[in-house]
């Protein structure tokens, strides 16, 4: 990413590094380390090789023939980040930061996680690199996402439930910072998305740009032309920026970011920062962006069916791209998400994560209006089978409920013995 603002770490009005003084030196060193590897082509090659050998990159760009026929408009291609090791694009960022941590000589990593996806990815990276690992996770998310907690623990990480605030993602981020201000000598904070203080947005965007680099080559090889539009869901914004970077310079390619519309952007239950009217400029969690907040500057509770989109802020880079009109923002409601997911499963045999399904919603709205010789790309940021508890719940599946009740009975019985 190029910085649109002369000030370090700013993108238009957004970004910066609003960090406690005690972290000043840590960020100085992080910036130095980052700039060193950024300028070192062998580092990028090492990263690409690692991702190829450990995580199956390049991930395919799958032509969705059935969906294309179904909508009868643009040719629909799906970038398959779900096929990454650990099941989502989060792997790109953590492995990149892992290599950086190795170069910095630190021995411990910490991370926040909401859905658990970034936590599992970080725990995986830590196991692979031999780092100690602590994951902060809102207590409510621990309760909702127990399977991911189980895997993190089995991967050797310590999962710390965060009992403060709304006990979700933003509180986990605060808690990770609290750890970091005490442990920065030995510890790197692996921020999970393109948010937080500089250099995180820029650095995470860089690691995620591997998605766009691949997708650009792939669409040219497969379609012969640039796509008309590229769709991605936007939580923090890392998968979106990852793929958008491959097409940023092509002004004719429309870039569409899809936020969590929750129960509707006119309700109090959503997480849309760039669409709707509940967000305003603010500074929190170390950076300046559009936050969902009240008139006093207190952060609001957010809602999304997709835990990974359930966040108050948005990447400063995306906020700027929204301002300039380079990225169009839309929102998808929980209900639309379930419908798009269902259709995609049945027609293509592909199970997008609830997060990713947001991108599918908007693509499905636009595709029928487009010309059959145009192509669009949907970034499938992750796979949905990690979400069995949420998805089965959302579908209100009676056999699933019976199954869970039966299991519980077994467990109750055996613990009663």
């Amino acid at each position, binding site marked *: 990413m190029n910085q649109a603002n002369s000030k370090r770490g700013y993108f238009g009005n957004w970004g910066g590094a609003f960090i406690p003084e*005690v972290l*000043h030196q840590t960020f100085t060193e992080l910036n130095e380390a980052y700039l060193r590897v950024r300028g070192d082509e062998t580092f990028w090659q090492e990263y690409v090789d690692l991702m190829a050998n450990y995580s199956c990159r390049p991930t395919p760009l799958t032509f969705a023939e059935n969906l294309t026929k179904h909508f009868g408009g643009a040719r629909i291609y799906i970038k398959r980040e779900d096929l990454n090791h650990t099941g989502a694009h989060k792997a790109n960022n953590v492995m990149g930061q892992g290599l950086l941590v190795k170069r910095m000589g630190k021995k411990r990593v910490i991370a926040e996680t909401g859905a658990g996806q970034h936590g599992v990815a970080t725990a995986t990276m830590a196991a692979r690199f031999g780092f100690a690992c602590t994951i902060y996770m809102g207590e409510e998310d621990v309760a909702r996402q127990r399977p991911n907690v189980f895997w993190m623990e089995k991967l050797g990480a310590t999962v710390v439930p965060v009992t403060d605030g709304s006990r979700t993602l933003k509180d986990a981020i*605060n808690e990770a910072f609290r750890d970091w201000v005490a442990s920065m000598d030995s510890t790197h904070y692996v921020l999970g998305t393109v948010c937080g203080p500089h250099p995180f947005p820029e650095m995470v965007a860089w690691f995620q740009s591997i998605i766009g680099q691949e997708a650009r080559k792939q669409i040219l090889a497969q379609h012969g032309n640039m796509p008309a539009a590229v769709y991605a869901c936007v939580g923090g914004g890392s998968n979106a920026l990852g793929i958008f970077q491959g097409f940023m310079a092509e002004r004719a390619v429309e870039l569409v970011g899809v936020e969590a519309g929750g129960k509707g952007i006119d309700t109090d239950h959503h997480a849309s920062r760039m669409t709707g009217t509940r967000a305003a400029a603010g500074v929190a969690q170390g950076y300046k962006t559009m936050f969902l907040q009240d008139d006093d500057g207190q952060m609001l509770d957010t809602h999304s069916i997709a835990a990974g989109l359930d966040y108050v802020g948005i990447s400063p880079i995306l906020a700027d791209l929204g301002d300039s009109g380079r990225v169009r923002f839309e929102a998808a409601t929980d209900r639309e998400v379930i419908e798009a997911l269902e259709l995609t499963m049945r027609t293509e045999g592909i199970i997008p994560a609830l997060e990713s399904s947001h991108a599918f919603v908007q693509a499905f709205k636009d595709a029928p209006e487009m010309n059959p010789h145009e192509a669009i790309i949907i970034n499938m940021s992750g796979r949905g089978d990690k979400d069995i508890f949420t998805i089965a719940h959302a579908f209100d599946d009676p056999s699933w409920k019976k199954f869970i009740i039966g299991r519980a009975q077994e467990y109750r019985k055996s613990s009663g013995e």
Partner: protein
Amino acid sequence: MNLTADLQKRLQNKPILLMTHLVLGYPSLEVNREVIRQMAENGVDCIELQIPFSEPMADGPVILRANQDALNRGIRVADCIQFAADIVQEFPQVNFLFMTYYNIIFRYGEEDFIKGAAEIGIKGFIVPDLPPEEGESYLSLSKKYRTAPIMFFTPTSTEERMRKVEKMGSGFIYCVARKGVTGKKTAMDDSLARSLNSYRSATSLPLAVGFGISSREDVAMLEGKADMAVIGTATIRLVDNQGPAAVGPFIAELLGH
């Protein structure tokens, strides 16, 4: 008289000054008022009035929960300012500062906030998530309205960094005794002593230091090494457990009265 000058004047008569802290609206403004009275009447020099924020990332669990609790009870920024205006009037012997996170100021409107605070007699601001690099307008507005933007020294600060930072600030330097968030006890050991030495040589501003102070001995140990002892979490715990009336005796004891 500006804050620095005021503190220096006080130091002529006292071996060490005392700054205390409370979270506005926790457990209520009425209790806050009583606590402040106890502090003021027992010789506290400065009080940090923390305006609650939903994301107090530099605070430890006690202050964090106090922030949340106050917000849950419905405290608003305007209430805090109104309350501060009364209190400053009522206790002219104390220097009051606002402690809060930058978003509160930013969202209120930086100039409105600083100007308003200056007008009611607030002496300075402690904003832990606003490093000087991000605080250009905050610093120039502070200058304009003659409020003190308090800067931080930390155990990780290089000499170069301290020299740069102290130039931006005024009032005093808030010295972080150790890495980590508020509320944890730190030993007054060699490494803290070394830090204080290097802090001292980097600035002529008074040094305020807190490290989980809870007894007369803690304060006594700081005398000669720092200019102001900072009591944060301890009084919140005290009020939680014993009520506001316990604060006066506690302060008196700390100061060896």
